């Protein structure tokens, strides 16, 4: 008892001391506190309040009663989701597109960076890189517009098909092509931008490693396989982990701008569905439950893959 009281008293005095120090710190550097105040308000209002607002996933949220006045329903919304046909389809679409992106889109900038690295003519390298970075700065509305125009019935892709005697295809209206178009347009827009970080990592590699390899008789190909790639692995791992944490977040803008009602069955993803059912139709609680589900999956995947990565001492934490 006595000891406990002592510890408590100690803790109390420590807290006292800390708050005294804080008051002093605020008095002395009040300008710094004033500076950061708008930032703190911003993070509270637009980051943390919405985060806490996710509790409506466990409510039957009614807009006029607010969070305080709406009834709690436990896991009802989540149970409802699991038995809900639409959700199954949306989840399957999201997971499949995410998987295709991981398989095809994730490695693309690594390969491209390695190819860039082999270019010896500096001016050619710069020009090619400039062209590759450009699409990153276009919005998905514009890129979506470009894709629709190029693949339209009178578009250039069908013009080329006709030159070879094939019948035109309405690519954007057919389910079979949707996911391929998503992956290819994603690569087109972001592959160049994605190389920047790998090129920076390649530049950081010690040149003496290559010199030693040359003495050992390694050609350029072997140098790439045995030096460049292994030394890129930490960068690749970190980017992979950051990617996997957002696994189910495909990006609203891209899909929204490529999707038509004809391709909903293969292309409607969580974010576009949440927008229609939540923002437009007002099913707030159900769609928040979907959002939470998405975050939990992302976090679980991040956790699992981080554990795997840590075994080779390359985890994020």
């Amino acid at each position, binding site marked *: 008892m006595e000891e406990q009281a002592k510890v408590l008293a100690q803790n109390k005095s420590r807290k006292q001391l800390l708050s005294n120090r*804080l008051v002093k710190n605020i008095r*002395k*550097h009040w*300008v*710094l506190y004033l*500076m*950061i105040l*708008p*930032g703190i308000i911003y*993070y509270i*209002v*637009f*980051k943390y*309040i*919405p*985060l*806490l*607002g*996710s509790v*409506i996933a466990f409510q039957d949220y009614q807009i006029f009663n607010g969070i305080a006045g709406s009834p709690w329903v436990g896991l009802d919304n989540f149970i409802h989701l699991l038995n809900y046909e639409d959700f199954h389809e949306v989840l399957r679409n999201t997971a499949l597109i995410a998987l295709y992106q991981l398989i095809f889109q994730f490695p693309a900038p690594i390969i491209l960076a390695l*190819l860039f690295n082999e*270019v010896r*003519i500096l001016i*050619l390298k710069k020009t*090619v890189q*400039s*062209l*590759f970075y*450009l699409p990153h*700065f*276009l*919005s*998905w*509305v*514009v890129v*979506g*517009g*470009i894709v629709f*125009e*190029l693949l*339209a019935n*009178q578009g*250039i892709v069908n*013009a080329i098909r006709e030159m070879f005697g094939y019948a035109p295809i309405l690519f954007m209206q057919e389910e079979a092509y949707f996911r391929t178009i998503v992956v290819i347009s994603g690569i*087109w827009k972001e592959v*160049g931008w994605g190389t*920047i970080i790998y090129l920076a990592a390649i530049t950081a590699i010690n040149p003496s490693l290559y010199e030693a390899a040359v003495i050992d008789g390694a050609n*350029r190909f072997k140098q790439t396989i045995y030096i460049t790639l292994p030394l890129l692995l930490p960068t690749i791992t*970190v980017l992979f982990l*950051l990617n996997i*944490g957002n696994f189910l*977040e495909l990006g*609203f*803008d891209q899909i929204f701008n490529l999707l038509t009602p004809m391709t909903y069955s293969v292309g409607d993803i969580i*974010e576009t569905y*949440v*927008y229609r059912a939540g923002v437009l139709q007002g099913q707030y609680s159900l*769609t928040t439950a979907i*959002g939470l589900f998405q*975050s939990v999956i992302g976090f679980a995947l991040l956790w699992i893959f981080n554990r795997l990565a840590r075994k080779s001492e390359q985890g994020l934490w």
Partner: protein
Amino acid sequence: MKLSIGEKVFQAFNYILLIVLASTMIAPLLHLLAVSFSSPIAADTKEVFLIPVDFTLATWKHILQNEVLWRAFGVTVFITVVGTFLSMLFTVLTAFPLSRKEFMLRKPIMLIMVLTMIFNAPMIPFFLTVREVGLMDSIWSLIIPGLISTFNMVIVRTFFMNIPKDLDDAARIDGCNEFRLLFQIYLQLSKPVLATIGLFYAVGYWNTFKTAVLFLRNPDLWPLQMRLRAFFTSEEEMAAVDLIMGDFDFNTTTLKAATIIFATIPIVIVYPYLQKYFVKGAVLGSLKE
């Protein structure tokens, strides 16, 4: 370095591959540019590749006289200029205290802010919050809810932390307070990083789309991207115009091509300037992740 025959073949192959791929980055835009200057008949009979066929300015005359489009252009210019300024101001104001050792709450506040990069609020609670704040159908809904990018803030903070501290002492002797220290000394020394994040913000605001989809019901407030989307998705927006004008020197194909080019030109114009800074920024930010 001497190359073996195999390596030479690879080099040649690599150059050709990269040149071909790089031209696919620009070719779609050049094609649409050509379509926008072609006659509708040529465009729809698939005669146009990279050079206009039956050259006409009709499409562009129509586009450039479209008041709705210019209005959206004005909204986008406004949010790009005002938004970039406000975002940079508050990013700098947030990053500076977090870079100071004497700021006692530096670590907990930094942690709280960086955590939002991992724990993102779902769309609906975010939407409801912005509505509660009263930003629905306000042009400010395109700026305030995304005011500070944590990514950019971390870039600036890192840059501030690497500025030598001798300057602080000199400033203190001169009786500088922290506001003047930030605005008269630190910002002067941070021009490259400010240019980088300024460009990131500006491109972000220029391409504003999702926030407009979420928060703007009133078409008068729509930014350019939103207006483009309306043009692309509803044939009436363009077809109706065709009928009223009774003019057949353009159609939806050429109009769509021209609006895409219209929205892309500003980006292409600032692109060479943009390029000077963004590579550095992309690397700076990634190091801290």
